[in-house]
């Protein structure tokens, strides 16, 4: 078990290194950092001196090592566009994205898992067919269209909810949260639903498929033949076994949440990392792009490590040694 976790840790480090390498290559090869940092008036000699000072003439590996070292110490460099430290820029944007992502993921799980179980247990029901058709349409509507539709209905036509921004936020330490005010929640609702709908359909279909697979397994049939009460059969036996693969996929889905948060943030002008990333692409602000990449990959790796731990907690085959 320790070995299993350790193996995953090493894999995670590999992924992080690869992403850091990507970010570094971006920084180093896409456009010349010196021309970006200096103005037109800087002389060629000054540029060369700066290049030498920054160590840009050092061997590639050395530069990459320094880049990674700086990152580990929280030094993420400066934005070409705003000249601010990137670390600061990202840090102020992180809470907005995380709150949005977590609430969206919660929506997708709290609705998606029960819906998946329901449709798996009644595969031929009319309600099931209706839900399946709805979710099929759900995955087919692009996230931004869902956002526009929600804005149009609840913001424009009904005027119930705000259509952009975070509403009222509360500052807790360095964390700017919108979870503690009603205004904040009102502002969060539409973006979170927008982001959650797509994940929800995926979660539901996945839970359904896995659950149906499990329901056909020998041990469920055997439990059935032993007269294990239906409720127990469905929720203790079947659902638990369903969760093993489902959890893995949900970990992977986290990536999807982050990706689509870019779109959602753009539609709702939600001041998160995604919006920052979009701006940085528009202005070819390479350092911000690179750091965003690393931060996202870090979250992804972190979530997947947690998933692995959950995996171990659920599945005794990973926990307990074979005796015989």
């Amino acid at each position: 078990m320790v070995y299993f976790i350790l193996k995953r840790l090493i894999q995670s480090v590999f992924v992080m290194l690869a992403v850091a390498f990507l970010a570094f290559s971006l920084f180093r090869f896409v456009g010349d950092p010196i021309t970006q940092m200096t103005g037109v008036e800087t002389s060629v000699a000054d540029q060369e001196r700066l290049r030498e000072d920054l160590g840009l003439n050092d061997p590639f590996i050395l530069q990459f090592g320094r880049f990674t070292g700086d990152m580990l110490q929280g030094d993420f460099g400066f934005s070409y566009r705003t000249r601010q430290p990137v670390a600061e820029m990202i840090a102020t944007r992180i809470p907005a994205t995380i709150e949005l992502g977590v609430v969206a993921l919660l929506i997708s799980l709290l609705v998606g898992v029960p819906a998946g179980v329901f449709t798996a247990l009644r595969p031929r029901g009319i309600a099931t067919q209706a839900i399946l058709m709805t979710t099929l349409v759900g995955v087919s509507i692009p996230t931004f269209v869902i956002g526009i539709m929600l804005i149009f209905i609840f913001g424009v036509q009904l005027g119930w909810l705000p259509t952009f921004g975070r509403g009222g936020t509360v500052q807790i330490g360095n964390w700017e949260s919108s979870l503690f005010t009603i205004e904040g929640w009102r502002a969060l609702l539409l973006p979170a639903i927008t982001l959650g709908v797509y994940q929800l359909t995926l979660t539901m279909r996945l839970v359904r498929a896995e659950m149906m697979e499990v329901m056909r397994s020998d041990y469920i049939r055997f439990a059935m033949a032993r007269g294990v009460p239906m409720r127990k059969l469905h929720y203790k036996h079947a659902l638990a076994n369903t969760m093993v693969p489902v959890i893995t996929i949900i970990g992977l889905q986290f990536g999807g949440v982050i990706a689509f948060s870019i779109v959602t943030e753009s539609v709702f002008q939600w001041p998160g990392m995604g919006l920052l990333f979009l701006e940085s692409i528009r202005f070819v602000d390479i350092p911000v792009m690179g750091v965003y990449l690393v931060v996202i990959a870090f979250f992804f790796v972190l979530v997947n490590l947690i998933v692995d731990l959950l995996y171990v907690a659920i599945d005794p085959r990973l926990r307990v040694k074979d005796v015989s």
Partner: protein
Amino acid sequence: MIAFLKRHEGLWLFVHAPAAIIAAIVALLIMLGAIFAPWIALVNPYDLSSFSLFDGLLPPIWEEGANTKYLLGTDDQGRDMISSILYGARLSLVIGISALSIAAVLGVGLGLAAGYYGGRFDAIVMRIADVQLALPAILTALLIDGIARGLLPAAVQQDLRVAVLTLAIALSLWVNFARTARASTFVQMKKEYVLAAIMMGQRPTRVMFVHILPNILGPLLVIMTVDLASAILLEATLSFLGIGLPADSPSLGTLIRIGMQFLLSGEWWILWIPTLFLVALVVSINILGDFLRDVFNPRLR
């Protein structure tokens, strides 16, 4: 006889799945419309001389003040909506299908080889796939777009928009193919017909492409359909975010982005009609994908 029935099986299921039939018809109509856009469209939205500002903002024919010439109305530039949509769908499909083809060739090739050789090669491919997974589709596409902006001079950028967009989408989709192909290949590698072929001393490429590939086409076909839908959605999303295609060569996504300006004014058709088209196209493809999944995995029925 049984082969005939077997082949019939899919056909039989198809005939008895009304949703799939409707989806197929809708998808086919849109695709035909897109292919023959230059011949059936009223105006060429890329050609400024073929439309006129005087026809601008005309509503669809069932609304008051419509011009019967423009069935679904016109946009602010006076472009016929139907024409814009057909040309837009054409572009969306061209990008979607070429991105899909690149992703399929790359992904299936790598996945097959990873499944066949296993060991170190497999580990390397899968680690690359892991990294790719850590950077989801939209992110990859945005990134490639950003890199292209940084590397290419502005003039070339405009010409290469479509190519960059296609590449970006392709790179974000290959992992699906690679993982599916690899998993299916692993299953096939345990089958005795593959062992027999290897034992005979057949070339690895022959074993992979002549023996294994035909046996894993089913799941790949499903992925292909579902990913075509993803590719179209991805293109629309990128164009919507303003980093896809520019306004003068509009895809469906660009049309929707333009339509957003009319969200609050009365000209609803400029936004919602392209949106409806996009959704109809993607829903149809997804329904077909779902149907194929049922055919190839009957146990989920």
